[in-house]
């Protein structure tokens, strides 16, 4: 017997009102990063000690720039989801917890944007 309303069961969003959204986003970004991380590590390994000119040449390749932007987006989305769970587990003061989660989310967006802009700056600009 369920005490939940039929509408509540149909929506499947549970008491937190978000269902498995957080969990699913974390897994989706994780799966996306498996090939991206291997590409990134091999690229970095092949470009160790690269000078300014060859680094720029590498970033000016549209495929490299695209993959790097995708990696940055996945990394920062995944990171803020993960840090949110860590904060929820260990910080028990409600005000500090909420403030930390807000800070993590906003900082992740800011840092992610900085990374993407830096890549595009080189890829398209100077």
């Amino acid at each position, binding site marked *: 017997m369920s005490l939940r309303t039929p509408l509540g069961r149909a929506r499947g969003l549970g008491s937190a009102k978000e269902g498995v959204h957080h969990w699913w986003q974390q897994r989706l970004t994780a799966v996306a990063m*498996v090939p991206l991380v291997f590409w990134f590590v091999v690229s970095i390994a092949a470009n*160790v000690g690269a000078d300014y000119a060859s*680094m720029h040449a590498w970033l000016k390749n549209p495929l490299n720039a695209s993959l790097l932007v995708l990696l940055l987006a996945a990394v920062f989305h995944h*990171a803020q989801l*993960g840090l949110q769970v860590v904060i929820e587990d260990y910080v028990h003061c409600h005000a500090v917890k909420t403030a930390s989660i807000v800070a993590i989310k906003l900082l992740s967006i800011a*840092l992610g944007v*900085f990374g993407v802009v830096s890549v595009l700056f080189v890829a398209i*600009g100077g």
Partner: protein
Amino acid sequence: MKPDSRPLSPHLQIYSFKLHMAMSISHRITGIALVVGTLLLLYWLGSAAAGPQAYATAASLIGSWFGRLLLLGWSFALFYHLCNGIRHLFWDAGKLFEKEEIYKSGIIVLAAAAALTVLAWILGLAL
């Protein structure tokens, strides 16, 4: 709130510390370490956008012995979190929950993370 004097269920320190416990908390620790490492990546990308001088400074910092030490730690944390993350995906699919499988997959993750780290550095130093 008034102090609670009711008995609590056993907490972490009552259990003997096992491999899967160490690997579980290591997944979190490497995750947090990787966020810190990502700041280094952003510094490197930002310097490439800022100009040749800033890039040269960043490259020499990252190429120094301390920079390389950080990169070594960062690369192992990355591969550990990646391999153990794949182990988590198996668990999400309802697999590898038997006791032997937990141990076996744990050992495989540790070996794979170490092997991938060594391989990445061989590639990096040889290419």
